[in-house]
């Protein structure tokens, strides 16, 4: 009917937009791309100190960053796809999995075309990157010393891409089981462009104003986790509750899938955090160690707290706790030591558990607890970075409150607030616009039938 037509045109629109963007940027740039270092990287060290040592590609660092990039891709699909997919009802399994999968595809293309240059292109006043690297023009095999001096610039670019991919995918947990597919696509195009790229610029780009402020965020506590949590809150409010919320059973349809997803998230997160050293060595190792330790501590904490509180240790609880720990250690992972990471994990496990409990009382239906896990976990992690950071771990970082520098905590608080407010407001507006254009929500009949049949004409199991 009417909405069908609207949807069709939207589909067309998006497709056309993307296609149009390509020739506009043009293939011509390919010639301009910096040719990959002619000298095989491996030989480089053999010629010692010839004049000013032009940045050369280190094979070990590159191997680690490429491996890490693949690991972070795995986090989104199948990791997050199954983590979320297992938690919904059977009739929405595919629709939920599809959210992560299609976002991986969509943002991969966006990032190449315009996302990367907006985020990391030459700074414009601290607010946004210039369009110099549109379509990856000039992003080639030579290292970019600003970001990673020992790996090809493209390696840094694609590592960052995977962060841009997973962030909107995380949000989808908030509106699971009721979002219209066409609305999702439009939302992701807008959100990635108008929220993610700017925020990544502020926090991580040379010249970005939050970075300049001195905020520490090693691997994305604000950019990825608080931002997905804040967006999730806006989304849960705008789209409204699932039908039957509070009365029907929303028990997860396939918890082994969820544990599989959580385990793959854990595995992939080593790329996320240790890869954020953009080199292989002591810093990456340290990030690797604290990531694992905080995760384990958080999973145990959630499990024990739930055991005490509800009488049983649940498997979903342990898996959720692990994810909460991974979230919380993310911003701190390059700045803290293993004992600190245990405390960060314990805090994450307990705080996120109670955040998920409290949700029930606040009345919004953040279906898969993105606010409770990523919003609260990310906030705790960003603040904990201000508590536990130590220059003994990373001399390029800063000391936190417990190491004698209370100022760092204040900066972290500021960064947290900025992120929450900016993302919440921007997401709210974007969702209202999308709602007006194509409608956010599936029809009542489709919601009862499930997204799989309603939106995709498929069923997960036959």
């Amino acid at each position: 009917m009417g909405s069908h037509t609207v949807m069709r045109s939207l589909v067309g629109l998006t497709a056309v937009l993307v296609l149009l963007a390509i020739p506009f940027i043009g293939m011509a740039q390919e010639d301009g791309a910096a040719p990959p270092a002619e000298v095989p990287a491996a030989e480089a060290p053999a010629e010692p100190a010839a004049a000013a040592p032009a940045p050369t590609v280190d094979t070990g660092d590159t191997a680690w960053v490429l491996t890490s990039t693949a690991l972070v891709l795995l986090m989104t699909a199948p990791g997050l796809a199954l983590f979320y997919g297992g938690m919904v009802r059977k009739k929405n399994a595919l629709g939920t999995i599809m959210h992560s999968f299609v976002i991986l595809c969509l943002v991969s293309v966006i990032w190449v075309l315009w996302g990367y240059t907006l985020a990391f292109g030459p700074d414009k006043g601290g607010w946004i990157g210039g369009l110099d690297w549109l379509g990856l023009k000039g992003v080639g095999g030579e290292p970019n010393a600003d970001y990673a001096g020992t790996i090809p610039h493209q390696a840094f670019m694609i590592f960052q891409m995977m962060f841009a991919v997973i962030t909107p995918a995380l949000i989808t947990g908030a509106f699971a089981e009721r979002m219209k597919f066409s609305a999702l696509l439009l939302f992701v195009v807008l959100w990635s462009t108008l929220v993610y790229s700017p925020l990544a610029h502020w926090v991580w780009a040379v010249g970005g104003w939050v970075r300049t402020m001195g905020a520490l965020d090693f691997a994305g506590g604000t950019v990825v986790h608080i931002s997905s949590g804040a967006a999730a809150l806006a989304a849960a409010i705008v789209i409204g509750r699932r039908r039957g919320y509070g009365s029907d059973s929303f028990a997860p349809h396939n918890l082994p899938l969820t544990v599989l997803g959580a385990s793959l998230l854990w595995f992939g997160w080593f790329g996320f955090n240790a890869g954020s050293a953009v080199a292989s060595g002591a810093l990456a190792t340290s990030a690797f160690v604290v990531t694992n330790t905080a995760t384990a501590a958080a999973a145990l904490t959630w499990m024990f707290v739930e055991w005490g509180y509800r009488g049983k240790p649940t498997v979903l609880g342990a898996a959720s706790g692990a994810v909460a720990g991974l979230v919380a250690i993310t911003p701190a992972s390059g700045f803290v030591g293993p004992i600190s990471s245990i405390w960060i994990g314990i805090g994450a496990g307990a705080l996120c558990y109670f955040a998920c409990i409290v949700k029930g009382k606040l009345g919004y239906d953040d279906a898969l607890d993105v606010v409770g896990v990523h919003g609260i976990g990310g906030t705790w992690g960003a603040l904990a970075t201000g508590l536990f950071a130590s220059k003994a771990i990373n001399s390029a970082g800063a000391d936190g409150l417990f190491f004698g520098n209370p100022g760092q905590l204040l900066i972290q608080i500021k960064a947290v607030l900025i992120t929450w407010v900016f993302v919440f407001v921007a997401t709210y507006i974007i969702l209202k616009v999308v709602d007006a254009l194509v409608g956010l929500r599936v029809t009542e009949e489709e919601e009862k039938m499930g997204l799989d049949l309603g939106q995709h004409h498929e069923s997960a199991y036959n």
Partner: protein
Amino acid sequence: MKKIEAIIKPFKLDEVKEALTELGVQGMTVTEVKGFGRQKGHKEVYRGAEYVVEFVPKVKIEVVVADALVQRAVDTIVRLAKTGTIGDGKIFVTPIGEAIRIRTGETGEGAL
């Protein structure tokens, strides 16, 4: 004693169960079934091939009640399972010769 067999839409199960309980029904047995009827099924598409799935997921409630309760039970089911749209389902009533409770060996209406 009669057996009431009601084939209803799955999401109506909880309401119907509650209402029957209030009526004094002490037990029932539920089966997931696939229904074929006036209600159209749905289309599924896989790699370009289209399948029309004519069977619709339904739930079958079987409840054996004393004769005195039959009419009220039927009315209750009709009232609660009704959405007014095609596919709401059917109720069939059949006679039951005997009922036995396995735990105690009780028979007749006392076994229900």
